[in-house]
């Protein structure tokens, strides 16, 4: 085996990989004849939406799928000269963790809770490299150091629950790196992490790959991540790879209508809003009974009779480099990419105008949660300052985005406004009334909510029709059953569903459809304001775009105001008139959308925008990132002074003693930082 770092040298060559699952409902072919190559030292990405087979591909290469239910077949899987397709299990085991290792999505559950981190890192060293425990321990310290975890000697004696999410993922990387493998497969390694931590982890992976010449297969749904880190890209759809090429080809000149649609349906962080998002209508096909021919046919805007037949994989038109596509109409798709899903200029460009009247006025909002911490036999109470002194307003028909990482208080703020949790202090004025526990019932109708998780937000024992009829009945909005049923049908139509779906139970609907039902339920009360708590973060990109467009349409038609809570900076930019950036319960910066994104002032906002990758490799290549160091501090024990002071690049001693006020940097643009003065 040679160890050259030539990127043209093929490390892994997979041909015709097929994975079938035998489930109670029938046979699911989760991977259907995919072929791809990985070169030594390269960073390859497999991208696609949930259920497309990207993770199954990875697990089948590692032979980690349950043997009873999964059947894996392949013409060949040549890894470094060995055919994995025919390799006996004992030799396959010797390969796992030695020459190929894998990093998983959930750092919280992927480490064994009852073994020390050190033990878990040394295991592969002892198994594969026959190191003694002592040698292995030394190597573990070296590895922990390499992945950027401070204080390695102490850290290896600790257990996973003593590590933060980001630290655990670093530990996973250390385990993967332990035997210096030739290939690391990273399956959605940053999906469960905050954006600033995501940037740390991906930079670490990239750096390690480059320094040690390890090839990486990065499996992700996040196009920004792909653009920022991948050399080459495989796009998967419904168990097949439908397009493959260098990242500049895929992003610059996509030739498959699905790839085009995918790119167009994600909002952009780096550009002002260009108009409505393109949407791919419908849902991916059910793999229990996939359609004949091209699997994208039903959702494709340019499909015709020819697409009844499966398209061959061909070289994409006009390319010199390795860029292939499986589409009969790839030439047309490539040429007409900008107009495939409707021309951007043809659809309204600006966000709808909003009124001037203030609908919701929040001032000095505090939401503290008093929890008791047991220490020995004594327990003492601690206030968690989920939201600390927050003030903002929302005007009629306006969307105010609330953005920040986990633990920043955005959700708590939404719940406090709705009085789902009664706020600790502060005034919430809605439509001219000062809200309190006593009068909240009177304004419930006008202030509604949409939740993140489309599975827990609908009562599983009620039919869709009953769910939508209930608010009409309780608030006596329609007299008589038939009037109510008419209204239910109207609501369903309004959110893009069919009236017959009133008869369905929630579990019979897809995630996107359920989210629409949740929206319809909020609309039933004819509210003036809807608090949207991460309404699209559980959805796939193409469905996410449908829901965002729906929310915008409803705003235009009904004059709704939104408080849009999300962690996805690009989505917030796209949908919001104004944006509030939060960190550890405090407002860091507030401003009009484009101003804030194009001219961020607060060091945290800048870092946040820096950390979020943009789905454009050209831009990504020229970006200079400053990556925030360290973890988000525990809200149990927030830093004194400015809460951001522990991670701030501009920090001085003053910051640690003084809590900065939210001062106007410019009219309508507030910044809470003593280092940033008004212009």
């Amino acid at each position: 085996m040679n160890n050259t770092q030539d990127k043209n040298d093929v490390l892994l060559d997979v041909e015709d990989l097929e994975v079938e699952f035998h489930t109670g409902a029938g046979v699911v072919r989760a991977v259907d004849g995919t072929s791809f190559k990985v070169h030594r030292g390269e960073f390859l990405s497999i991208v696609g939406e949930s259920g497309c087979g990207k993770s199954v591909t990875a697990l089948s290469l590692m032979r980690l799928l349950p043997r009873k239910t999964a059947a894996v077949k392949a013409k060949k899987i040549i890894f470094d000269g060995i055919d994995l397709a025919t390799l006996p299990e004992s030799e396959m085991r010797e390969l796992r963790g030695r020459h190929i290792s894998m990093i998983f999505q959930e750092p919280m559950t992927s480490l064994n809770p009852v073994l020390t981190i050190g033990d878990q890192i040394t295991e592969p060293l002892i198994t594969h490299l026959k190191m003694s425990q002592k040698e292995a321990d030394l190597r573990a310290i070296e590895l922990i150091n390499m992945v950027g975890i401070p204080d390695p000697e102490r850290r290896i004696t600790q257990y996973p629950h003593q590590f933060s999410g980001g630290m655990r993922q670093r530990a996973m990387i250390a385990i993967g790196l332990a035997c210096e493998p030739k290939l690391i497969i990273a399956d959605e390694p940053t999906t469960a992490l905050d954006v600033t931590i995501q940037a740390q982890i991906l930079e670490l992976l990239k750096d390690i790959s480059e320094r040690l010449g390890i090839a990486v297969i990065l499996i992700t749904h996040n196009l920004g991540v792909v653009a920022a880190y991948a050399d080459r890209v495989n796009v998967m759809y419904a168990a097949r790879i439908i397009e493959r090429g260098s990242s500049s080809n895929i992003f610059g000149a996509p030739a498959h209508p699905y790839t085009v649609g995918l790119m167009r349906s994600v909002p952009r962080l780096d550009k002002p809003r260009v108009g409505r998002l393109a949407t791919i209508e419908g849902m991916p096909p059910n793999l229990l009974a996939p359609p004949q021919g091209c699997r994208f046919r039903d959702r494709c805007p340019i499909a015709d009779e020819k697409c009844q037949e499966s398209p061959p994989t061909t070289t994409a038109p006009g390319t010199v480099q390795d860029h292939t596509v499986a589409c009969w109409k790839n030439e047309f798709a490539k040429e007409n990419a900008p107009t495939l899903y409707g021309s951007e200029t043809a659809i309204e460009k600006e966000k709808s105008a909003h009124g001037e009247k203030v609908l919701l006025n929040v001032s000095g909002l505090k939401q503290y949660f008093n929890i008791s911490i047991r220490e020995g036999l004594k327990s003492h109470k601690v206030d968690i300052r989920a939201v600390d002194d927050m003030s903002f307003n929302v005007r009629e028909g306006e969307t105010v985005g609330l953005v920040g990482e986990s633990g920043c208080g955005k959700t708590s703020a939404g719940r406090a406004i709705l009085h789902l949790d009664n706020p600790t202090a502060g005034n919430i004025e809605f439509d001219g009334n000062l809200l309190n526990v006593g009068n909240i019932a009177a304004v419930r109708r006008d202030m509604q909510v949409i939740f993140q998780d489309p599975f827990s937000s609908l009562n599983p024992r009620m039919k869709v029709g009953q769910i939508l009829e209930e608010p009409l009945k309780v608030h006596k909005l329609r007299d008589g059953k038939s009037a109510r049923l008419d209204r239910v049908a109207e609501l369903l139509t309004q959110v893009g569903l069919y009236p017959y779906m009133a008869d369905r139970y929630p579990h019979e609907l897809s995630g996107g459809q359920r989210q629409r039902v949740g929206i319809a339920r909020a609309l039933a009360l004819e509210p003036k304001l809807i608090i949207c708590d991460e309404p699209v973060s559980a959805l796939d990109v193409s469905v996410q775009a449908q829901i965002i467009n729906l929310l915008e349409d409803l705003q235009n038609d009904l004059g709704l105001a939104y408080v849009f809570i999300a962690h996805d900076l690009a989505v917030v930019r796209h949908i919001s008139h104004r944006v509030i950036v939060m960190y550890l319960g405090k407002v860091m910066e507030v401003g009009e959308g484009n101003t804030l994104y194009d001219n961020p002032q607060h060091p945290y906002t800048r870092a946040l925008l820096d950390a979020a990758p943009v789905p454009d490799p050209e831009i990504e290549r020229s970006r200079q990132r400053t990556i925030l160091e360290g973890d988000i501090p525990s809200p149990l024990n927030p830093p004194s002074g400015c809460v951001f002071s522990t991670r701030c690049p501009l920090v001085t001693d003053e910051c640690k003693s003084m809590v900065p006020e939210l001062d106007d940097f410019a009219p309508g643009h507030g910044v809470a930082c003593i280092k940033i003065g008004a212009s």
Partner: protein
Amino acid sequence: MLRYTAQRLLLVIPTLIAVAILVFFLVRVLPGDPVEVKLIGEFGDVNPELIYKERKRLGLEDPLHIQFVNFMVGLPQGDMGISLVTERPLTEEIGARITISIELAFFATLLSVIIAFPLGTAAALYRGTWFDYVIRIITIGGLAVPSFWFGMLIIMALLATVGKLPSLDTAGLFEDPMANLYTLFWPALSVGYRYSSVIARMLRSSILEVLAEDYIRTARAKGLYERIVIVKHGMRNALLPTVTVVGLEFAFLIGGLVVTEQVFNINGIGKMFVEAVQFNDMTMLQGLVLIVATSFVLINLLVDLLYAALDPRIRYQA
């Protein structure tokens, strides 16, 4: 760990006090007058004055709060009062008969764990095979078979084959462990069948649950031997819920003693309990229930400590 142990020990005290209080008042609600029953038994005649005198002598005519204080003050000194029937100190009465029950409970637990662990593990690892089904039927049976009937079947089988029952004059556990084991084996099996079934079922399902965890996949992705994946990564985590069940089900085991001692005619505290109910011996009931509840609390303390030893998340919380 030391700190956790100390903490957990201290938390037991209020529980035990609450148990004592509850037992005291529960027993006072008992209808019927034990003294009257006893006197009728002795003299066949009921003279209200005699009853009153007798009650006064036994301290039953004291105001309730005085009785309560006496009871609670006596407990920490190892004084549980006297039996209303024999008028001997309860500590003596119970002390004479508790050893065999403790031995029986101990053997039954040991036997159950020894049977349950291989069965539960094998059923999980050979899930879906005929082997799994056989174990499944055996263990579901264990939950359905009344332990006293199972004991009777054992006796029947012994009589039919050996022709006699093991002698009940037991040698002490420490004097002649083998003889002791032989005597107690069948009663222990009869009372432990259910216990082992519950443990085996729990172990099987927790192993299956644990083997589906992400960290097991991680362990396999490291290229570890399957044996190490299952034993080191799987079993240790699967033990956690199993250990809890061992503690909770211990109450059932003690309950099983009540009927099993009856069947095998063992003079332990289970049999004593039934007698106390029949004779309306209020103070005896009080003492016995207190001992049973205390043993349950202590066993679960032990289980909690074992749990903490196995699970660093608990250990490091304090």
